[in-house]
């Protein structure tokens, strides 16, 4: 087995992304917002396409019409949800309404995350090989409800464990062809990291914040790995606290002094930063990855996640 080192790079530039956003904005405004799913597809298409690994770009092959259909379904669900809630409130059944509201939220959030992962990864390819997410819907719902419950009754102290359990489940179910990702971060370590971060940031009047971000980034990246048969690839973060100072302060200044107009450049800078500071080393021969994951085109979860604005975070 040959041992290799790989890097990912992001080659996009702010001007191109800015132009894409402008065209998206024009078409979204002219169509009274209906263009939004297509606009999102264009943006993702660009950002994925400019991310290059081993000389080959990533591809986002989701389409506006898929996401539009998902948008309609998600919207219909929301209407039903609010209508039921309204009926409860009008009939003075406030308690039932509130229970229904939080119950649905507890169900809808994990289902949206699940749906969004399925769609996003099925629509991601590299070198012609599809990614995939193989998590079980109800297993994830159980995990989510349990985590949310303990987080609430411990007043948030449990939430680092919740977040790590969730991340472990999600990442461990991501595939690319016949290789699988894994994550081995655990709640106790993450809890200490958060505690130390809060504490030192307060003591140093915020200066430590950048080093805290560096540690969090490293904790995300260093605990990731990719395995295929008996071959393994480790992820390593090599950003320093100083790198984070440069990234975040320049981003902030860019945002302030352009009244937000520099957002596309900020996105490009940040993606570039994340990818530049991640290396992979190990023995997987990427040329031999086989197509194994199936396609999946239902974007309801993706759009639902958009409504709730969780964003898409690994």
């Amino acid at each position, binding site marked *: 087995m040959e041992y290799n080192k790989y890097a990912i790079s992001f*080659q996009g530039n702010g*001007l191109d992304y*800015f*132009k*894409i*956003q*402008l*065209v*998206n*904005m*024009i*078409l*979204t*405004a*002219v169509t*009274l*917002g209906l263009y*939004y799913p*297509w*606009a*999102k597809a*264009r943006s993702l298409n660009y950002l994925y*396409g*400019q991310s*290059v690994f081993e*000389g*080959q*770009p990533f*591809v*986002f*092959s989701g*389409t506006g019409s898929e996401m539009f259909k998902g948008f309609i379904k998600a919207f219909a669900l929301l209407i039903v949800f609010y209508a039921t809630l309204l009926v409860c409130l009008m009939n003075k059944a406030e308690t039932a309404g509130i229970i229904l509201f939080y119950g649905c939220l507890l169900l809808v959030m994990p289902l949206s995350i699940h749906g969004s992962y399925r769609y996003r990864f099925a*629509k991601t*390819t*590299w*070198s*012609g*090989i*599809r990614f995939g997410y193989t998590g079980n819907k109800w297993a994830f719902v159980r995990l989510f409800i349990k985590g949310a419950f303990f987080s609430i009754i411990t007043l948030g102290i449990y939430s680092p464990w919740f977040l790590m359990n969730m991340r472990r489940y999600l990442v461990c179910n991501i595939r690319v*062809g016949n290789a699988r990702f894994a994550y081995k971060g655990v709640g106790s370590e993450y809890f200490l990291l958060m505690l130390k971060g809060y504490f030192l940031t307060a003591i140093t009047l915020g200066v430590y914040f950048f080093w805290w971000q560096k540690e969090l980034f490293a904790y995300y990246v260093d605990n990731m790995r990719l395995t295929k048969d008996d071959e393994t690839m480790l992820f390593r973060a090599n950003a320093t606290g100083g790198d984070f100072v440069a990234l975040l302060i320049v981003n902030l200044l860019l*945002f302030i002094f352009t*009244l*937000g*107009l520099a*957002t*596309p450049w*900020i996105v490009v800078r940040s993606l570039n930063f994340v990818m530049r500071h991640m290396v992979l080393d190990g023995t997987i021969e*990427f*040329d*031999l*990855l*086989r*197509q194994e994951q199936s*396609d999946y085109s239902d974007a309801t979860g993706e759009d639902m996640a*958009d409504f709730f604005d969780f964003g898409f975070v690994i």
Partner: protein
Amino acid sequence: MKHIHKVIFFDGLQAGGQTVSMFFNENGISIQQGAYWNADEPVLFFPYHECRIQSLPGSMNVFLNRRGTQYMVAPPGASWFPALQMMINKANHSIFFKLFQLKTSVLVALTVAILAGAYLGITRLIPLAGLRLITPEYEMQLGDRFYKAFVSGEAIDSAKTAQLQSFAKELQLSKTYPIKITVVKNKELNAFAMPGGNIVVYNGIIRTMKDADEMVALLAHESAHVNGRHSLRAVLRSAATGILISVVLNDVSGILAVLIDNADMLQSLNYSRSIEESADENGMQTMLVNGIDPAGMKKLMLHFKAAEAEMPAGISFLSSHPDTDSRIKHADQFAATHKNISFAPKPSLDSLWLQLKH
């Protein structure tokens, strides 16, 4: 004789690329495994409308299906590539692509024009529709709710409230709305109108005033806000901006939200200025109708100006009664054009005023 080219092909079965033979004509792209074209071997055919070009620094990728699983990479600087590019672009003329070909400056101008149009359209249309849909009766109900919420936290001077109410009864202030007055115990110089006819006057302002015509000016000004449905207009306007940001421009967030917020703040300042000016003007008309000298408006404003001078500059700059000087000038001009009218004394109003001052 067709031209065969060598390209790297990714077949969507395994990750590594392989060198294959390729040719293209007006119908699409044909690919065959192996370095030489063999007419007897199977051929993969890809129509242009399924293809998409992606240029990366140093390489040109041609995706052969919409799923992103099969694609080929052209060697850098291949002489045949522009011809292929033209074929593919011809089959894929989307509006997005056409717009994307425009210069950045043109796109910026277009975006600004459309946004400005949408902004003006929506911030005008929604208030217009809202003002038609919301009847004065409903407005009064709404105003009562605001009023109840407001008075619950204030100390009301009920004696002065009754006196000022009878003072207002002597005047013709509104045809549509019942004008109800509340005097609040507060030293500040302030008074404001709520939708539907409630007017709140701080007793600080009563103490500062000298003559009855100043109070008439104040009530006339506030009634003009009520009659012009100004607070309803303002609420509808900000709702319209909210709708614009959240629905129409949804996620294209960062830039737009900030731009619109800024534009809206300037607009609101401008708007409240124009509203105050129109309330002054209509207020002075009301004074004339009631046979009161409009010069009282100027006297009223001078009190506000004196109070403003004591305020720190930061507060008065963005206050809701902007530009006192220009308003005073306007009131002065208005009064000057009616100088020759003689205004009959109003003994009943004056005696009510004297009660109020005690």
